[in-house]
């Protein structure tokens, strides 16, 4: 079994994606993801230097809208759906460190 992806990699990726997963799950995901990457290695040897990446199936250009006000959402409805709100704003716990 090739090792394209280690448990440390998975743990790092989980942190990056803000997913708190247990050590046991890290092991399990590592095995599964490693297996997938193994399968996906079929593209490794393709000669792609001259190929343009394709990001959008239907290429459009300059899709713009006029600078005209549209009706806004109702604040009460929106804050009513929020997990925590106060003084007309969304409330969250403090960040442990700067993340910007």
């Amino acid at each position, binding site marked *: 079994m090739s090792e394209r992806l280690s448990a440390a*990699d998975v743990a790092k990726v989980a942190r990056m994606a803000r997913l708190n997963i247990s050590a046991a799950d890290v092991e399990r995901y590592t095995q599964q993801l490693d297996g997938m990457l193994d399968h996906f290695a079929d593209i490794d040897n393709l000669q792609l230097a001259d190929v343009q990446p394709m990001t959008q199936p239907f290429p459009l250009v300059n899709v713009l809208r006029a600078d005209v006000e549209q009706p806004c959402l109702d604040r009460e409805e929106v804050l009513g759906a929020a997990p925590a709100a106060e003084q007309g704003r969304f409330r969250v716990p403090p960040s442990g460190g700067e993340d910007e």
Partner: protein
Amino acid sequence: MSNFSTATSIAHNVASGAQSAVSIVEEHLQRITQREEEVHAFNLVTSAEARERAADIDARIARGENVGPLAGVPIALKDNMCTRGVPTTCSSKILEGWKPPYNATVVDKLFAAGAVFVGKTNLDEFAMGSSTENSAFGPTRNPLDTSRVPGGSSGGSAAAVAAGFAAVSLGSDTGGSIRQPAALCGVVGVKPTYGLVSRYGLVAFASSLDQIGPFSHSVADAALLTEVIAGHDPMDSTSIPKPAPSLVSVLGRGVEGMRIGRVADLPEGADADVLARLDAAFIALEKAGATIVDVKLPSLSYALTAYYLIAPAEASSNLARYDGVRYGNRVAANDMNTMYADTRAAGFGDEVKRRIMLGTYALSAGYYDAYYGKALKVRRLISNDFAAAYANADVILTPTSPTVAFPFGAKTDDPLTMYLCDIFTIPTNLAGHPAMSVPFGTGQANMPVGVQILAPTLGEEAMFKVAAVLESAA
């Protein structure tokens, strides 16, 4: 075809007064009452609203109003389309109970066309899956054989139509999530050209691949629905700047002189019974005056890899907004990052987590070029292959799904096994082309087999013409 009323006939009868919308909706709600517990097509049945709406439709018709081309038609919506004031969960715990403050564009269009919403259907969580076994609220069962899956991710929408709970339904298709369940449930399923139908209000899975499309019993219904939901939307920057195409009118034109492509280098994996039905489809089309041409799509075997790098990458970004700050469910914590990590760990299921991590990895520093970057180039190769093929063919036929509907648990041990369900459907999403699945006989265990018709960009007319002929030959 089934014995259930088509949308076309319902709309006609309701508009003419021959049938009341109320009686139609009662008929469907009754079938829901009888079998929904067994099938579990829905996350939410909106019976009270449906009755009220049907009564309103009848009243307006009595007043002589033109209610629209879908007058009184009971329709179910996949639960990843925003419906104002009605819970939209994406079959995920993280959005359980969330009510959007706005409607998806397609919802507004269906409403303006006179449709009656009967409920929100079950799906694989966040549209990630091929069997609806990934739903956080329990799987949907194939109405034709409840020991088997309905397919996914739009399993609930396919089952709702197959079971007669709704005359038509909407699903979304990112790698085959309309077509594959359509094939497994024996109904028609369409993925339109990317950009033909607005994505505004469709909860995004993979932005450059997602499209909304209809499930129906008849090709004519699918054409009608596609006409209603298609067309330029200024709220979606990727929306094709054209009006909806006219499709119902082309259905009777036949396939005389059309060139039907057969993929000479089709990837392996389809069962013999499925391939047999595909062969029969080619024969039927030849009999109807079409010519079969061989086409080659050499990059097709790489499509799965490209898709399973691109889709999770986009998804990892699209699903980052589920953080417990503004909506959805939150796991409280003393600091923000813990809140994020705990909320998302608790709120997302296994497959979603897996794809988020795979996608994050594919985009991360040092790996972008090897994974995501390369996958985008493979995507171009596939698109080029199709372009070359369509120089010689008007449409291409393949199986929709490699197998008929499989039993629960048959493919859940190894995620890759499940991914292989999509080998024939994925390429069209990568290329942005339209494709549809039409039921064409049965295979193993008497389960339905679907044949997939692929067409080039904005080639819906050709696609539907072929579908109509196959339908009559099935």
